[in-house]
């Protein structure tokens, strides 16, 4: 503490009697570190300018872990023709923002190229493809330092930067000190540049997003269409003396589905000619008995017939069962009872 006090000599600034002519050890180290950082910055900037590299702050994490959010990335302007799958590039999106992702595929699009990009942390490629004639190819990145750079570009950061810059200029130009003439000349020249640099720094640092995407599928259903199922083979029964109909063959089967009806037709066995047809069973509950009576009035000639029955939807008659049933019947004149329709062929 005594040594520290020993070095504090007054600067001779009017009204600032306590201002040190030469800063303390800590101050000198900070100034030295700042100067080192300043030289590194200036050299980096000049180097980048010479080879066409642009620094940019990576503001989101979909390229992680290869390029984490908060990195400062260095992208070199590259003709699109030199881009290869696997390169990490930064391109402009349609909305003017910038995206940095890895190239999945390259295909020609006229005299330009269309790039499909995908973030390493994304499961799917970006939905849009980017048609470009040049891209920024990411040559290197430094994790972490994007945070202070981004902060310095914010309004508060710019304010702090301006204040520190102004303080440094004031310090460098303070009257008195050790070797006035030489330094004052150098400082005088530096003031304009320093102030100008501070002003220019108001312009924004380029940021590049590493956009996240997510994809998922909602599977709904299944939606299963109905399959029309054929009825069982009808049961044929000879019934005599039915009112009006007389002696008949009666076909019965169980209703398969309440939505069904049955289209039936009778054909001559010898010629396959259609004799008569109709529908039956509409509106019957599932399991109820469907009845089809074939009387002599329907079948005019004594011969063999085939009764074909096919199930179908009552509402949409084109939806029919793939198979139909065929039941043999015959018309005959029988002793005592006379004309009759009987089950089976003669």
């Amino acid at each position, binding site marked *: 503490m005594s040594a520290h006090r020993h070095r504090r000599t007054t600067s001779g600034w009017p009204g600032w009697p306590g201002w040190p002519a030469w800063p303390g050890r800590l101050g000198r180290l900070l100034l030295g570190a700042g100067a080192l950082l300043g030289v*590194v910055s200036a050299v980096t900037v000049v180097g980048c300018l010479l080879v066409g590299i642009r620094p940019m702050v990576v503001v989101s994490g979909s390229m992680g872990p290869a390029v984490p959010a908060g990195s400062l990335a260095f992208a070199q302007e590259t003709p699109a023709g030199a881009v290869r799958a696997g390169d990490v590039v930064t391109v402009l999106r349609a909305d003017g923002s910038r995206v940095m992702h890895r190239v999945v595929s390259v295909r020609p699009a006229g005299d330009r190229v269309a790039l499909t990009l995908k973030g390493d942390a994304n499961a799917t490629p970006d939905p849009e493809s980017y048609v470009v004639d040049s891209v920024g190819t990411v040559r290197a990145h430094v994790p972490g330092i994007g*945070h202070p750079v981004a902060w310095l570009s914010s309004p508060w950061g710019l304010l702090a930067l301006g204040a520190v810059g102004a303080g440094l200029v004031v310090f460098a130009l303070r009257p008195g000190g050790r070797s006035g003439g030489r330094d004052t000349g150098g400082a005088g020249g530096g003031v304009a540049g320093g102030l100008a640099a501070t002003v220019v720094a108001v312009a924004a640092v380029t940021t590049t997003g590493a956009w996240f995407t997510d994809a998922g599928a909602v599977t709904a259903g299944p939606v299963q269409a109905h399959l029309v199922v054929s009825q069982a083979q009808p049961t044929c029964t000879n019934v005599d003396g039915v009112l009006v109909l007389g002696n008949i063959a009666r076909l019965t089967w169980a209703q398969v589905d309440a939505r069904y009806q049955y289209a039936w037709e009778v054909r001559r066995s010898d010629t396959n000619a259609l004799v008569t047809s109709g529908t039956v069973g509409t509106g019957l509950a599932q399991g109820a008995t469907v009845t089809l009576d074939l009387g002599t009035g329907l079948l005019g000639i004594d011969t063999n017939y085939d009764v074909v029955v096919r199930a179908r939807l009552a509402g949409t008659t084109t939806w029919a069962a793939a198979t139909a049933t065929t039941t043999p019947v015959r018309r005959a004149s029988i002793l005592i009872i006379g004309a009759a329709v009987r089950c089976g062929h003669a």
Partner: protein
Amino acid sequence: MARFRGARRPAPRRRADVGGRWFGDGRTRALLCLGVVAGLAVTSTSAYWTDEATIAGGAITTGTLDLTAGPTTGAEQLTGTGPNTWASGLLAISSVVPGESTAATFVVRNSGTAPLRFNATVRASTAALTSGSNGLQVQVYDNGTTAINTGTQAGADRTGSCNGTLVHTSYVTTTASTDVFAVDVALASTGTTRNLCLRAWLSTAAPTTLQGGSTSVVIDLRAAQVSAP
């Protein structure tokens, strides 16, 4: 120790001034510090190499993007980075005859920390109910919170209906439909949701060849981070 020695020496600052040989005295160092400012300045200057918009001082986000969907809020599926699939069972219906329909609702939610926008396409898992404009039709209703299903299988009159705004109608095929939403839907903050209602209808003109066919209706959701991070 250093302080003690320093106190005895007439010019102790020179010994401690390690960087002095490289960067000169305080004035020079102060000016060199301004190189940091110049660095930032040139970073922005380089933006003129191409004509582009820049985002000033944007926040750096290390958040997550996660679009989820579920039957209701709080029952999210599709969590985590996709692609993944939620076998929802929504719309499940069997023994459909031409003219019947069914409807169901679900909720899409931003379950990550990044703002997102999403869109969707619709397709069928199989071509079994595809027949031009006579097959299975799917409709999506935006902000559809209620699905009403009436009728019975035996009556062949099952009918589903949705509330909300009809935003998409397509006869499903195994290839993806056009985007369901004309403009991507934004879910700006964590927990933001969007109610959607789905309706599937088998055309009254469905041909008999579709009998027994079965398909799932797949809604492919895709989300992207909203541009300004």
